[in-house]
Protein backbone atom coordinates (compact mmCIF):
# COMPACT_ATOMS: atom_id res chain seq x y z
CA UNK A 1 0.00 0.00 0.00
CA UNK A 2 1.30 3.42 -0.88
CA UNK A 3 1.64 5.78 2.03
CA UNK A 4 1.47 9.54 1.89
CA UNK A 5 4.42 10.88 3.85
CA UNK A 6 5.05 14.59 4.03
CA UNK A 7 8.33 14.77 5.87
CA UNK A 8 10.76 12.37 7.45
CA UNK A 9 12.02 14.11 10.57
CA UNK A 10 15.15 12.85 12.33
CA UNK A 11 15.63 13.70 16.02
CA UNK A 12 19.07 13.35 17.51
CA UNK A 13 21.67 12.00 18.09
CA UNK A 14 22.49 15.31 19.80
CA UNK A 15 19.19 16.64 21.05
CA UNK A 16 18.52 19.10 23.88
CA UNK A 17 16.06 16.70 25.52
CA UNK A 18 17.98 13.44 25.21
CA UNK A 19 20.59 12.67 27.83
CA UNK A 20 22.22 10.13 25.56
CA UNK A 21 22.68 9.79 21.82
CA UNK A 22 19.88 8.02 19.98
CA UNK A 23 18.27 8.85 16.69
CA UNK A 24 14.50 8.72 16.27
CA UNK A 25 13.31 8.95 12.69
CA UNK A 26 9.65 9.94 12.37
CA UNK A 27 7.56 9.82 9.23
CA UNK A 28 4.99 12.53 9.55
CA UNK A 29 1.95 13.83 7.76
CA UNK A 30 1.84 17.45 8.75
CA UNK A 31 2.56 17.25 12.47
CA UNK A 32 0.83 13.91 12.88
CA UNK A 33 3.35 11.08 13.33
CA UNK A 34 2.62 8.08 11.11
CA UNK A 35 5.48 5.85 12.19
CA UNK A 36 8.82 6.03 13.91
CA UNK A 37 11.97 3.99 14.10
CA UNK A 38 14.99 4.25 16.34
CA UNK A 39 18.59 4.07 15.20
CA UNK A 40 21.07 2.93 17.81
CA UNK A 41 24.79 2.22 17.65
CA UNK A 42 26.41 5.31 19.14
CA UNK A 43 27.31 3.69 22.47
CA UNK A 44 28.38 0.13 21.62
CA UNK A 45 31.48 -0.63 23.66
CA UNK A 46 31.33 -4.43 23.62
CA UNK A 47 31.24 -4.99 27.39
CA UNK A 48 30.23 -8.65 27.08
CA UNK A 49 33.21 -9.26 24.80
CA UNK A 50 35.54 -7.76 27.42
CA UNK A 51 33.90 -9.78 30.21
CA UNK A 52 34.50 -13.22 28.66
CA UNK A 53 37.48 -15.05 30.13
CA UNK A 54 37.99 -12.67 33.04
CA UNK A 55 37.81 -13.48 36.77
CA UNK A 56 34.58 -12.53 38.55
CA UNK A 57 36.43 -9.94 40.63
CA UNK A 58 36.92 -7.90 37.43
CA UNK A 59 33.57 -8.71 35.82
CA UNK A 60 31.82 -7.42 38.95
CA UNK A 61 33.08 -3.89 38.28
CA UNK A 62 32.37 -4.17 34.54
CA UNK A 63 28.81 -5.33 35.27
CA UNK A 64 28.29 -2.27 37.43
CA UNK A 65 29.38 -0.03 34.56
CA UNK A 66 26.88 -1.49 32.10
CA UNK A 67 24.59 1.27 33.29
CA UNK A 68 25.57 4.19 35.46
CA UNK A 69 22.05 5.17 36.51
CA UNK A 70 20.99 1.76 37.81
CA UNK A 71 24.43 0.46 38.82
CA UNK A 72 23.33 -1.15 42.10
CA UNK A 73 20.89 -3.56 40.46
CA UNK A 74 23.48 -4.72 37.88
CA UNK A 75 25.86 -5.39 40.74
CA UNK A 76 23.12 -7.16 42.72
CA UNK A 77 21.90 -9.41 39.89
CA UNK A 78 25.43 -10.43 38.88
CA UNK A 79 26.49 -11.25 42.44
CA UNK A 80 23.24 -13.07 43.26
CA UNK A 81 23.63 -15.16 40.11
CA UNK A 82 27.15 -16.13 41.28
CA UNK A 83 25.75 -16.98 44.72
CA UNK A 84 23.08 -19.20 43.14
CA UNK A 85 25.76 -21.03 41.11
CA UNK A 86 28.00 -21.74 44.12
CA UNK A 87 25.31 -22.04 46.85
CA UNK A 88 26.70 -19.16 48.93
CA UNK A 89 24.32 -18.07 51.66
CA UNK A 90 23.84 -14.44 52.70
CA UNK A 91 23.35 -13.25 56.30
CA UNK A 92 19.92 -11.72 56.89
CA UNK A 93 21.29 -8.31 57.77
CA UNK A 94 23.25 -8.18 54.51
CA UNK A 95 20.19 -9.25 52.49
CA UNK A 96 18.18 -6.37 53.96
CA UNK A 97 21.04 -3.88 53.43
CA UNK A 98 21.12 -4.93 49.76
CA UNK A 99 17.43 -4.16 49.49
CA UNK A 100 17.96 -0.74 51.10
CA UNK A 101 20.76 0.18 48.66
CA UNK A 102 18.76 -1.11 45.72
CA UNK A 103 15.62 0.81 46.65
CA UNK A 104 17.59 4.04 47.15
CA UNK A 105 19.03 3.51 43.68
CA UNK A 106 15.55 2.91 42.27
CA UNK A 107 14.32 6.12 43.92
CA UNK A 108 17.06 8.27 42.41
CA UNK A 109 16.58 6.67 38.99
CA UNK A 110 12.81 7.26 39.01
CA UNK A 111 13.20 10.84 40.22
CA UNK A 112 15.75 11.47 37.46
CA UNK A 113 13.37 10.01 34.86
CA UNK A 114 10.56 12.25 36.08
CA UNK A 115 12.93 15.24 36.03
CA UNK A 116 13.77 14.46 32.39
CA UNK A 117 10.08 14.31 31.51
CA UNK A 118 9.23 17.57 33.28
CA UNK A 119 12.24 19.22 31.61
CA UNK A 120 11.11 17.94 28.20
CA UNK A 121 7.59 19.32 28.54
CA UNK A 122 9.26 22.59 29.62
CA UNK A 123 7.98 22.51 33.19
CA UNK A 124 11.42 23.41 34.47
CA UNK A 125 10.30 24.42 37.97
CA UNK A 126 8.97 20.99 38.85
CA UNK A 127 12.04 19.44 37.21
CA UNK A 128 14.39 21.45 39.43
CA UNK A 129 12.36 20.59 42.55
CA UNK A 130 12.76 16.93 41.65
CA UNK A 131 16.51 17.25 41.08
CA UNK A 132 16.78 18.85 44.51
CA UNK A 133 15.04 15.87 46.12
CA UNK A 134 17.27 13.53 44.16
CA UNK A 135 20.36 15.03 45.82
CA UNK A 136 18.96 14.02 49.21
CA UNK A 137 18.61 10.43 47.97
CA UNK A 138 22.15 10.53 46.55
CA UNK A 139 23.40 11.70 49.97
CA UNK A 140 21.86 8.69 51.65
CA UNK A 141 23.24 6.35 48.99
CA UNK A 142 26.68 7.86 49.50
CA UNK A 143 26.47 7.64 53.28
CA UNK A 144 25.60 3.93 53.18
CA UNK A 145 27.67 2.68 50.25
CA UNK A 146 30.55 5.16 50.08
CA UNK A 147 30.03 6.47 46.54
CA UNK A 148 27.40 8.36 44.62
CA UNK A 149 27.16 6.34 41.43
CA UNK A 150 29.41 3.32 41.05
CA UNK A 151 29.62 1.97 44.57
CA UNK A 152 30.33 -1.81 44.21
CA UNK A 153 28.50 -2.30 47.50
CA UNK A 154 27.39 -5.89 47.03
CA UNK A 155 29.98 -8.69 47.15
CA UNK A 156 29.47 -12.49 47.17
CA UNK A 157 28.24 -13.54 50.61
CA UNK A 158 27.22 -10.11 51.84
CA UNK A 159 27.81 -6.39 51.51
CA UNK A 160 30.90 -4.24 51.87
CA UNK A 161 29.98 -1.89 54.72
CA UNK A 162 27.67 -2.08 57.71
CA UNK A 163 25.11 0.61 58.46
CA UNK A 164 25.81 2.49 61.70
CA UNK A 165 23.11 3.46 64.17
CA UNK A 166 23.54 7.19 63.45
CA UNK A 167 23.19 6.41 59.72
CA UNK A 168 19.86 4.71 60.45
CA UNK A 169 18.63 7.82 62.29
CA UNK A 170 19.81 10.04 59.44
CA UNK A 171 18.21 7.79 56.84
CA UNK A 172 14.86 7.79 58.65
CA UNK A 173 14.87 11.56 59.01
CA UNK A 174 15.78 12.06 55.36
CA UNK A 175 13.17 9.54 54.20
CA UNK A 176 10.48 11.51 56.03
CA UNK A 177 11.60 14.70 54.29
CA UNK A 178 11.79 13.01 50.87
CA UNK A 179 8.34 11.46 51.34
CA UNK A 180 6.80 14.83 52.15
CA UNK A 181 8.40 16.55 49.19
CA UNK A 182 7.71 13.78 46.65
CA UNK A 183 4.06 13.65 47.76
CA UNK A 184 3.80 17.40 47.26
CA UNK A 185 5.36 17.28 43.79
CA UNK A 186 3.18 14.32 42.86
CA UNK A 187 0.12 16.38 43.71
CA UNK A 188 1.50 19.26 41.66
CA UNK A 189 1.95 16.89 38.72
CA UNK A 190 -1.51 15.39 39.20
CA UNK A 191 -3.35 18.69 39.34
CA UNK A 192 -1.31 20.81 36.90
CA UNK A 193 -3.67 21.72 34.05
CA UNK A 194 -0.90 22.37 31.49
CA UNK A 195 0.90 19.17 32.48
CA UNK A 196 -2.37 17.33 31.94
CA UNK A 197 -2.74 18.82 28.47
CA UNK A 198 0.74 17.69 27.48
CA UNK A 199 0.55 14.27 29.15
CA UNK A 200 -2.95 12.82 29.34
CA UNK A 201 -3.93 10.76 26.31
CA UNK A 202 -0.53 11.23 24.63
CA UNK A 203 1.56 8.22 23.62
CA UNK A 204 -0.92 5.54 24.62
CA UNK A 205 0.37 2.00 25.04
CA UNK A 206 -2.59 -0.34 25.48
CA UNK A 207 -2.37 -3.54 27.52
CA UNK A 208 -2.55 -5.65 24.33
CA UNK A 209 0.23 -3.63 22.70
CA UNK A 210 2.35 -3.87 25.86
CA UNK A 211 1.95 -7.65 25.85
CA UNK A 212 2.79 -7.81 22.16
CA UNK A 213 5.91 -5.65 22.54
CA UNK A 214 7.02 -7.40 25.77
CA UNK A 215 7.18 -4.05 27.55
CA UNK A 216 8.69 -4.28 31.03
CA UNK A 217 8.98 -2.24 34.19
CA UNK A 218 7.06 0.98 34.90
CA UNK A 219 6.12 1.25 31.20
CA UNK A 220 4.24 -2.05 31.37
CA UNK A 221 2.86 -1.35 34.85
CA UNK A 222 1.35 1.89 33.57
CA UNK A 223 -0.55 -0.21 31.02
CA UNK A 224 -2.16 -2.39 33.67
CA UNK A 225 0.33 -5.24 34.12
CA UNK A 226 1.33 -5.35 37.82
CA UNK A 227 2.57 -8.97 37.74
CA UNK A 228 5.53 -7.97 35.58
CA UNK A 229 7.49 -6.94 38.71
CA UNK A 230 10.36 -9.40 39.25
CA UNK A 231 10.68 -8.28 42.86
CA UNK A 232 7.63 -10.43 43.63
CA UNK A 233 9.85 -13.52 43.04
CA UNK A 234 12.88 -12.32 45.01
CA UNK A 235 13.27 -14.17 48.36
CA UNK A 236 14.05 -11.05 50.43
CA UNK A 237 11.31 -8.92 48.87
CA UNK A 238 8.79 -11.73 49.49
CA UNK A 239 9.27 -11.36 53.24
CA UNK A 240 8.72 -7.60 53.01
CA UNK A 241 5.26 -8.05 51.52
CA UNK A 242 4.83 -5.18 49.10
CA UNK A 243 2.26 -4.73 46.36
CA UNK A 244 3.41 -3.44 42.96
CA UNK A 245 1.96 -0.18 41.68
CA UNK A 246 -0.08 -0.23 38.50
CA UNK A 247 -2.31 2.05 36.49
CA UNK A 248 -4.51 1.38 33.50
CA UNK A 249 -4.34 4.52 31.32
CA UNK A 250 -1.07 3.66 29.54
CA UNK A 251 -0.29 7.24 28.54
CA UNK A 252 2.63 9.52 29.43
CA UNK A 253 0.81 10.74 32.53
CA UNK A 254 0.35 7.18 33.83
CA UNK A 255 4.00 6.30 33.29
CA UNK A 256 5.21 9.30 35.27
CA UNK A 257 2.63 8.74 38.02
CA UNK A 258 3.67 5.07 38.34
CA UNK A 259 7.25 6.24 38.94
CA UNK A 260 6.11 8.76 41.57
CA UNK A 261 4.09 6.07 43.36
CA UNK A 262 6.99 3.62 43.17
CA UNK A 263 9.25 6.15 44.89
CA UNK A 264 6.76 6.24 47.78
CA UNK A 265 6.56 2.42 47.68
CA UNK A 266 10.37 2.23 47.87
CA UNK A 267 10.36 4.51 50.93
CA UNK A 268 7.90 2.14 52.61
CA UNK A 269 10.10 -0.87 51.72
CA UNK A 270 13.21 0.81 53.17
CA UNK A 271 11.33 1.64 56.38
CA UNK A 272 10.21 -2.00 56.70
CA UNK A 273 13.81 -3.13 56.16
CA UNK A 274 15.06 -0.77 58.87
CA UNK A 275 12.41 -2.12 61.26
CA UNK A 276 13.39 -5.73 60.56
CA UNK A 277 17.18 -5.17 60.52
CA UNK A 278 18.66 -7.81 62.88
CA UNK A 279 22.00 -7.60 64.68
CA UNK A 280 24.56 -9.89 63.08
CA UNK A 281 27.35 -10.29 60.54
CA UNK A 282 27.22 -8.60 57.13
CA UNK A 283 29.54 -11.00 55.31
CA UNK A 284 29.25 -14.77 55.31
CA UNK A 285 32.07 -15.57 52.91
CA UNK A 286 32.22 -18.13 50.11
CA UNK A 287 34.08 -18.68 46.86
CA UNK A 288 32.31 -18.66 43.47
CA UNK A 289 32.85 -21.91 41.58
CA UNK A 290 31.82 -23.75 38.44
CA UNK A 291 28.28 -23.52 37.09
CA UNK A 292 25.80 -22.01 34.70
CA UNK A 293 22.67 -19.97 35.43
CA UNK A 294 20.15 -17.56 33.99
CA UNK A 295 19.02 -15.12 36.66
CA UNK A 296 16.92 -11.99 36.58
CA UNK A 297 15.98 -9.10 38.83
CA UNK A 298 13.91 -5.95 38.69
CA UNK A 299 15.90 -2.91 37.58
CA UNK A 300 14.32 0.57 37.82
CA UNK A 301 13.39 0.21 34.13
CA UNK A 302 12.18 -3.39 34.22
CA UNK A 303 13.39 -6.94 34.09
CA UNK A 304 17.15 -7.41 33.88
CA UNK A 305 18.50 -10.88 33.01
CA UNK A 306 21.99 -12.28 33.21
CA UNK A 307 23.14 -15.57 31.76
CA UNK A 308 26.47 -16.58 33.30
CA UNK A 309 28.72 -19.61 32.83
CA UNK A 310 31.76 -19.88 35.07
CA UNK A 311 34.67 -22.30 35.38
CA UNK A 312 36.18 -23.85 38.53
CA UNK A 313 38.50 -20.88 39.14
CA UNK A 314 35.57 -18.45 39.13
CA UNK A 315 36.37 -17.07 35.68
CA UNK A 316 33.41 -16.01 33.56
CA UNK A 317 33.49 -18.24 30.48
CA UNK A 318 30.33 -16.96 28.86
CA UNK A 319 27.97 -14.14 29.72
CA UNK A 320 25.05 -12.45 28.10
CA UNK A 321 22.99 -9.59 29.48
CA UNK A 322 19.48 -8.57 28.58
CA UNK A 323 18.59 -5.09 29.74
CA UNK A 324 15.07 -3.71 30.09
CA UNK A 325 15.46 -0.57 27.98
CA UNK A 326 15.61 -2.34 24.62
CA UNK A 327 12.07 -3.69 25.15
CA UNK A 328 10.73 -0.30 26.17
CA UNK A 329 12.46 1.52 23.30
CA UNK A 330 10.87 -0.89 20.82
CA UNK A 331 7.48 -0.53 22.50
CA UNK A 332 7.92 3.24 22.41
CA UNK A 333 8.82 3.45 18.72
CA UNK A 334 6.33 0.96 17.35
CA UNK A 335 3.29 1.61 19.55
CA UNK A 336 3.51 4.82 21.58
CA UNK A 337 4.89 7.18 18.95
CA UNK A 338 2.44 6.01 16.30
CA UNK A 339 -0.37 8.55 16.20
CA UNK A 340 1.24 11.12 18.48
CA UNK A 341 -0.57 14.39 17.63
CA UNK A 342 2.46 16.67 17.24
CA UNK A 343 6.22 16.54 16.85
CA UNK A 344 6.70 18.27 20.19
CA UNK A 345 5.21 15.19 21.84
CA UNK A 346 7.71 12.84 20.19
CA UNK A 347 10.59 13.78 22.47
CA UNK A 348 8.41 13.81 25.59
CA UNK A 349 6.89 10.41 24.77
CA UNK A 350 10.33 8.98 24.09
CA UNK A 351 11.62 10.32 27.42
CA UNK A 352 8.53 9.06 29.31
CA UNK A 353 9.51 5.47 28.44
CA UNK A 354 12.79 6.21 30.29
CA UNK A 355 15.21 4.90 27.66
CA UNK A 356 18.73 4.14 28.85
CA UNK A 357 20.86 3.89 25.72
CA UNK A 358 24.07 2.99 27.57
CA UNK A 359 22.68 -0.27 28.93
CA UNK A 360 20.73 -1.00 25.75
CA UNK A 361 23.87 -1.13 23.66
CA UNK A 362 26.47 -1.94 26.33
Amino acid at each position, binding site marked *: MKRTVDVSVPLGPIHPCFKE*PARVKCETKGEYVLSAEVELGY*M*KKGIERIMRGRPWQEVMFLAERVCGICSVIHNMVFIEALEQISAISVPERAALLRVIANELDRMQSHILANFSYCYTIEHETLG*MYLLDVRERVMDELERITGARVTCAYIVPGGVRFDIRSQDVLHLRANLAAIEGEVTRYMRMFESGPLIGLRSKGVGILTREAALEAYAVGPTARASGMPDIDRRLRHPTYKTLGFTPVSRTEGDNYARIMVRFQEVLESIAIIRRCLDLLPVGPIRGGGIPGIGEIAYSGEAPRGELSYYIKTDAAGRVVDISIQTPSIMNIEACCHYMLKGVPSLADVSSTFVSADPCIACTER
Partner: protein
Amino acid sequence: MNVLQSVKNLVRSKSIHVAYVDVGSCNGCDIEVLACLSPRYDIEQYGIYVHNNPREADILLVIGAYTPGWEEKLHTLWEKIPDPKVAIAVGNCPISGCLFNRPHSLIDPPVSKHIPISAEVPGCPPRPTEILTAVLSVAPIVFKDYEVSKR
Protein backbone atom coordinates in the same frame (compact mmCIF):
# COMPACT_ATOMS: atom_id res chain seq x y z
CA MET B 1 43.20 46.86 25.39
CA ASN B 2 40.32 48.63 23.73
CA VAL B 3 36.85 49.20 25.12
CA LEU B 4 35.22 46.60 22.90
CA GLN B 5 37.56 43.94 24.22
CA SER B 6 36.81 44.79 27.84
CA VAL B 7 33.07 44.65 27.14
CA LYS B 8 33.55 41.27 25.49
CA ASN B 9 35.52 40.02 28.49
CA LEU B 10 32.79 41.13 30.87
CA VAL B 11 30.00 39.54 28.83
CA ARG B 12 31.83 36.30 28.21
CA SER B 13 32.61 35.81 31.88
CA LYS B 14 28.87 35.79 32.65
CA SER B 15 27.47 33.75 29.79
CA ILE B 16 29.14 30.44 29.15
CA HIS B 17 27.00 28.02 27.16
CA VAL B 18 27.67 24.35 27.59
CA ALA B 19 26.85 21.40 25.36
CA TYR B 20 27.58 17.83 26.35
CA VAL B 21 28.11 14.85 24.11
CA ASP B 22 28.20 11.23 25.18
CA VAL B 23 30.54 9.25 22.94
CA GLY B 24 30.09 5.92 24.70
CA SER B 25 30.13 6.06 28.48
CA CYS B 26 28.19 4.11 31.09
CA ASN B 27 25.85 7.03 31.81
CA GLY B 28 27.36 7.67 35.24
CA CYS B 29 29.08 10.87 34.11
CA ASP B 30 25.96 12.05 32.25
CA ILE B 31 23.93 12.03 35.41
CA GLU B 32 26.69 13.83 37.31
CA VAL B 33 26.64 16.56 34.65
CA LEU B 34 22.85 16.70 35.06
CA ALA B 35 23.30 16.90 38.83
CA CYS B 36 25.27 20.13 38.25
CA LEU B 37 21.96 21.68 37.15
CA SER B 38 20.31 20.87 40.47
CA PRO B 39 19.63 23.68 42.93
CA ARG B 40 22.31 22.37 45.28
CA TYR B 41 25.20 22.86 42.83
CA ASP B 42 23.31 25.43 40.73
CA ILE B 43 25.54 25.83 37.70
CA GLU B 44 23.53 28.85 36.50
CA GLN B 45 24.59 31.05 39.40
CA TYR B 46 28.04 31.25 37.76
CA GLY B 47 26.53 32.27 34.44
CA ILE B 48 26.87 28.82 32.87
CA TYR B 49 23.90 27.60 30.84
CA VAL B 50 23.44 24.01 29.70
CA HIS B 51 21.46 24.00 26.45
CA ASN B 52 23.02 21.05 24.67
CA ASN B 53 22.97 22.90 21.38
CA PRO B 54 26.42 22.79 19.71
CA ARG B 55 25.74 25.80 17.49
CA GLU B 56 25.50 28.18 20.43
CA ALA B 57 27.95 26.44 22.75
CA ASP B 58 31.26 27.72 24.09
CA ILE B 59 32.26 24.64 26.04
CA LEU B 60 31.81 21.02 24.94
CA LEU B 61 31.83 18.43 27.69
CA VAL B 62 32.96 15.15 26.17
CA ILE B 63 31.85 12.06 28.09
CA GLY B 64 32.74 8.51 27.17
CA ALA B 65 35.37 6.44 25.47
CA TYR B 66 34.84 7.16 21.74
CA THR B 67 32.93 4.32 20.12
CA PRO B 68 33.06 3.60 16.35
CA GLY B 69 29.61 5.16 15.88
CA TRP B 70 31.15 8.59 16.45
CA GLU B 71 33.83 8.49 13.73
CA GLU B 72 33.50 11.68 11.65
CA LYS B 73 30.40 12.69 13.65
CA LEU B 74 32.35 14.02 16.64
CA HIS B 75 34.66 16.03 14.38
CA THR B 76 31.65 17.49 12.51
CA LEU B 77 30.10 18.40 15.84
CA TRP B 78 33.32 20.09 16.95
CA GLU B 79 33.42 22.16 13.77
CA LYS B 80 29.83 23.32 14.29
CA ILE B 81 30.76 25.06 17.54
CA PRO B 82 31.64 28.72 16.93
CA ASP B 83 34.97 30.16 18.15
CA PRO B 84 36.11 30.66 20.91
CA LYS B 85 35.55 27.09 22.00
CA VAL B 86 36.89 24.58 24.48
CA ALA B 87 36.44 20.84 24.95
CA ILE B 88 36.64 19.33 28.42
CA ALA B 89 36.93 15.57 28.95
CA VAL B 90 34.75 14.46 31.87
CA GLY B 91 35.55 11.16 33.55
CA ASN B 92 38.21 8.52 33.08
CA CYS B 93 36.73 7.17 29.84
CA PRO B 94 37.75 10.00 27.46
CA ILE B 95 41.18 10.19 29.13
CA SER B 96 42.22 6.55 29.09
CA GLY B 97 39.19 4.38 28.31
CA CYS B 98 38.95 3.46 32.01
CA LEU B 99 38.13 -0.23 32.48
CA PHE B 100 36.66 -0.58 29.00
CA ASN B 101 40.15 -0.24 27.48
CA ARG B 102 40.81 -3.99 27.31
CA PRO B 103 41.37 -6.51 24.52
CA HIS B 104 38.27 -7.13 22.34
CA SER B 105 36.56 -3.87 23.20
CA LEU B 106 35.35 -1.62 20.39
CA ILE B 107 36.43 1.72 21.80
CA ASP B 108 39.23 3.98 20.60
CA PRO B 109 40.44 6.23 23.45
CA PRO B 110 41.71 8.82 24.22
CA VAL B 111 39.34 11.39 22.75
CA SER B 112 42.25 13.86 22.42
CA LYS B 113 43.31 11.86 19.33
CA HIS B 114 40.13 13.04 17.61
CA ILE B 115 39.41 16.56 18.85
CA PRO B 116 41.61 18.97 20.88
CA ILE B 117 40.93 18.59 24.60
CA SER B 118 41.80 21.52 26.86
CA ALA B 119 41.08 20.12 30.30
CA GLU B 120 40.50 16.72 31.84
CA VAL B 121 38.44 15.83 34.90
CA PRO B 122 39.43 12.36 36.12
CA GLY B 123 37.10 10.22 38.23
CA CYS B 124 34.70 7.38 37.70
CA PRO B 125 32.50 9.40 37.80
CA PRO B 126 33.83 12.79 38.98
CA ARG B 127 31.72 14.65 41.52
CA PRO B 128 29.52 17.50 40.24
CA THR B 129 31.68 20.02 42.13
CA GLU B 130 34.77 18.82 40.27
CA ILE B 131 33.05 19.24 36.89
CA LEU B 132 31.95 22.71 37.96
CA THR B 133 35.47 23.63 39.08
CA ALA B 134 36.93 22.50 35.75
CA VAL B 135 34.47 24.57 33.73
CA LEU B 136 35.00 27.62 35.91
CA SER B 137 38.79 27.43 35.84
CA VAL B 138 39.13 26.82 32.09
CA ALA B 139 36.67 29.50 30.96
CA PRO B 140 38.64 32.66 31.98
CA ILE B 141 41.92 31.29 30.60
CA VAL B 142 40.46 30.74 27.14
CA PHE B 143 37.79 33.40 26.77
CA LYS B 144 39.51 36.44 28.36
CA ASP B 145 41.19 38.61 25.71
CA TYR B 146 40.53 35.95 23.08
CA GLU B 147 40.86 38.33 20.14
CA VAL B 148 44.12 39.83 21.46
CA SER B 149 45.77 36.52 22.16
CA LYS B 150 44.69 35.10 18.81
CA ARG B 151 46.78 37.69 16.95
